[in-house]
């Protein structure tokens, strides 16, 4: 199972564990209400910040947990794969992804959850993803130069700025709590939307 307890679980189990984890992830998304596109886009209009809260909580829980496991030597952080940090392509991709999110009402994972409970807009969104993937693949030779520019490699924020990951984690936790508080205040002031 990747870097975690590698001595007990052999690599052949990886795919099976991935399926179990995937189903669990989908279940959590659905039970958090993320199969509803109206709930998801609430974060853009300010009437529902569940997306921000759920994902921010997941991020800090997972990273604090990983850092503790790393401290006790239970997990080999060096074996964890990170995607290479391609600075400008990520900014452009983020804008495109955000536009797709606010107009379509899903992100790639939640649209599959929506399909799971039989929502038609989920199917449409999924078809759009497939078309987008196809177009991007066909256009890749044109974009390749830009895609590979400003590639910093597999680097994390604390690594790049050469700071302690632990104090960085403290900062992220504080930012998360502040974000939760601010979004709570915003939500109080905005007219409640029925959905």
């Amino acid at each position, binding site marked *: 199972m990747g870097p975690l307890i590698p001595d007990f679980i052999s690599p052949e189990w990886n795919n099976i564990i991935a399926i179990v984890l995937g189903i669990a992830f989908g279940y959590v998304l659905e039970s958090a209400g993320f199969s509803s596109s109206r709930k998801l886009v609430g974060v853009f209009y300010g009437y529902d910040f569940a997306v921000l809260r759920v994902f921010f909580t997941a991020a*800090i*829980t997972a990273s*604090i947990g990983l*850092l*503790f496991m*790393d*401290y006790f*030597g239970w997990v080999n*952080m*060096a074996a964890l794969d990170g995607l290479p940090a391609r600075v400008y392509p990520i900014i452009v991709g983020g804008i495109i992804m955000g536009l797709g999110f606010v107009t379509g009402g899903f992100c790639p994972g939640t649209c599959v959850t929506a399909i799971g409970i039989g929502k038609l807009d989920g199917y449409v969104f999924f078809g759009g993803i497939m078309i987008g993937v196809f177009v991007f693949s066909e256009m890749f030779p044109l974009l390749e130069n830009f895609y590979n520019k400003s590639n910093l490699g597999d680097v994390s924020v*604390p*690594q790049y700025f*050469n700071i*302690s*990951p*632990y*104090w960085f*984690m*403290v900062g*992220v*936790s*504080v930012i*998360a*709590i502040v974000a*939760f*508080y601010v979004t709570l205040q915003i939500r109080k002031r905005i007219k409640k939307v029925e959905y």
Partner: protein
Amino acid sequence: MKKRYIFLALVPIVLSIILALLPDKSNSIDAKRIAKNLKSAKYTGVSPDKLLLESVNDDRFMQPDELATVIMGQDPSYLLIDLRDAGQFGKFTLPGAINIPSDQILTDENRATFESDAYKYVLISNGTVLSDQVWMILRRAGYDNLKVLNGGLNQFYQLYLNPPKPGELDPSEAFENYRFRKAVGAHLGLPNPDEFIPGGSAAVASPTTTINKTQAVTKTPTKTVVPKKAAGGGDEGC
């Protein structure tokens, strides 16, 4: 309800502060980060473990016969680097060798010499030790295609000045090898070992041809060069 939110908000902050204040993170990514910084700050060349593997491997050594083949064939893909000081280099060297004294090996212009991919660089000194040390320095600095002349110039000249004569029962290759070494010796301006090494005794033992003798006479100028060479090889620097 409000209290529960505050408690939940405090949990990640407290946990991460505990994490930051925990002692001895020698096993953690922070230690790995520092190690990585050290590594990237100081070195650009081969990693220490790889260098260690290479240093116990004999692949870097070039045997004198291989070098002789290169010299005789005037193979342009080899660049001979003479690591001795300019004085010794001035006295004699191998054909085509350039002089980079070992203490100037990492100056900017000399570094540029090693940056081409077109050459295999043969490091030459009087013995093996100095050129092996320079090999280590260059390899650590990240340069590639380096060879070390095994035995150095001393063994090289020893081999071609006085090649071990094959016995009567040796295979024909040994004789071929012997002839090749004699030819290399002649090419490098060394006297014919048959005439030179045994000295008078050979002349007495084999008075077969007078032509040989006259050759020996005409070769006297080269003979005077030889002791110089032997002397040059004699003051083994390493």
